[in-house]
């Protein structure tokens, strides 16, 4: 576990500071850069004195070199947000990075390594919206998402694609994020969004995960279902089709009199937003765009429901909590370290596990 953590951190810090391996060899008093190279790749372990030299000469804390829950020089996030100051976003990214890094480090230790292969959509930025929608339709069919695709999407992403899906308490303005590490993909969703919005964000971030290499998303994107940026529009078309495949929509009786009522009820049944449903119908040619524009957004807010009594899903995910539980139970990570990682009291941690049906051994 973390056998080359220190070497990887030294490399990350060296690159961040714009230093060469020769420069670092000079700092440590090594004869040549090969020794630095061997440390960075883990072939040679640092002595305690050398580690202290790194702390003193490179101006980083000891924690920087030994904390396994930092994403230092690795990991790219793409945030779906509205008007969040970059400084606040970056601060939250550091917190979120700890959760992702924890899963990345602990899951293989407890026998849950990420998949060996990574799946991708055969789309590019030149693909048409129709092609994105077709890919979404096919995804829903291939992975048998069923009559309410939103219901099974997170499970399929976790179990079939090996994507870490976390429900989080994000700062205000953040809807979700996709995160790419060398060996792990993750999606974070603000759990306090309404259910339809959460599902749309999830499907949207799934698109980014499945197209990261051909269409790397921006670090920050606007959380709108009507984005003007092409990649985001492709992602929205894909997401709409995943959540509302033609075949699934065909099972509903077409609207007769009150479009608003029909949109709200159908969206509720599919666990999507009525607004997303409206534009999906326009894209499929089942609703006239002029008519759609006449439907006021206010009438579709929260699918016309009072959502004040609805509780958000529990934090993180069952799969994540299972990894945490095993890590504690097998002695890979201490209970107090876990509580610190998730910023919780031990009792709250046990309760969270129980909410996911996962028992955590925290009776200390």
């Amino acid at each position: 576990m973390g056998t080359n953590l220190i070497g990887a951190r030294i490399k990350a810090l060296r690159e961040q500071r714009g230093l060469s391996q020769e420069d670092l060899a000079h700092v440590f008093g090594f004869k040549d850069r090969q020794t630095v190279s061997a440390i960075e790749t883990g072939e040679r372990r640092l002595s305690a004195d050398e580690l202290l030299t790194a702390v003193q000469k490179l101006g980083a804390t000891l924690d920087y070199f030994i904390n396994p829950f930092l994403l230092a020089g690795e990991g790219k996030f793409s945030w779906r947000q509205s008007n969040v100051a970059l400084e606040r976003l970056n601060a939250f990214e550091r917190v979120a990075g700890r959760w992702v890094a924890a899963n990345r480090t602990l899951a293989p230790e407890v026998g849950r390594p990420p998949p060996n292969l990574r799946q991708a959509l055969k789309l590019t930025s030149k693909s048409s919206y129709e092609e994105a929608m077709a890919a979404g339709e096919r995804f829903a069919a291939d992975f048998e998402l069923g009559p309410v695709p939103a219901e099974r999407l997170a499970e399929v992403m976790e179990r079939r694609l090996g994507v870490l899906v976390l429900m989080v308490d994000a700062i205000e303005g953040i809807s979700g994020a996709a995160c790419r590490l060398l060996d792990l993909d993750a999606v974070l969703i603000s759990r306090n969004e309404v259910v339809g919005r959460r599902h749309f964000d999830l499907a949207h971030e799934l698109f980014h995960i499945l197209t990261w290499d051909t269409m790397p998303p921006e670090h920050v994107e606007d959380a709108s279902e009507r984005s003007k940026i092409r990649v985001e529009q492709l992602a929205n078309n894909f997401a709409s089709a995943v959540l509302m495949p033609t075949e699934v929509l065909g099972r509903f009786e077409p609207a007769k009199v009150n479009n608003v009522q029909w949109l709200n009820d159908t969206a509720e049944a599919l666990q999507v937003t009525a607004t997303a449903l409206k534009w999906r119908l326009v894209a499929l040619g089942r609703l006239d765009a002029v008519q759609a524009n006449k439907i006021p957004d206010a009438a579709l807010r929260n699918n016309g429901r009072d959502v004040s009594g609805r509780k958000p899903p529990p934090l993180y995910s069952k799969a994540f909590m299972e990894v945490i539980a095993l890590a504690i139970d097998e002695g890979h990570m201490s209970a107090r370290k876990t509580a610190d990682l998730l910023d919780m009291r031990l009792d709250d941690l046990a309760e969270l596990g129980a909410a996911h049906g996962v028992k955590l051994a925290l009776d200390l």
Partner: protein
Amino acid sequence: MARQRGPVLVDTNVILECWRMDAWRALTGGYRVETVEDCVIETQTGFQRRRQEQQIDNAALQSSLAAIQKVGDAERAAAIVREPMFSFLDLGEQSLWAHALSRTDNWVLCGPDKASLRFGVRLGFRERLVALEGLLQDAGHKASGLRPAYTSSWLSKTLGEIVIMEASKRK
């Protein structure tokens, strides 16, 4: 097992459990009990990571301990290069182990967290890991009502499991 005559190093969990069971006086009366500064901090309200916090008087705690060890980067660096698993312990547990590894006397360590125990086993200190229950009983204190993780039987069973896991990891 013969009663421990040397220093007993205790972690935050043990201090909290002793306080909860009103057994702190018996423990510190029977042994040379030591800890580290970070564990002392973690016993104070706001840092216990528990809903129901113990009200532990800092002055009383400090005066009852034989020593409160200060741990710096040098001890921590020495510990992490010996075993990378050090990073997966909490700050108090890290400091306690970093201090223990710097000593050459016949210390024992009392701390029930499985990761802390696994760290100790991996470094070859299985025989120095002791249960609170055993310490209290040897000191003549009736130790009933302790949580399972502080009992001798739990420790014995858990150490056995850890030894097996470590052996299978080496294969």
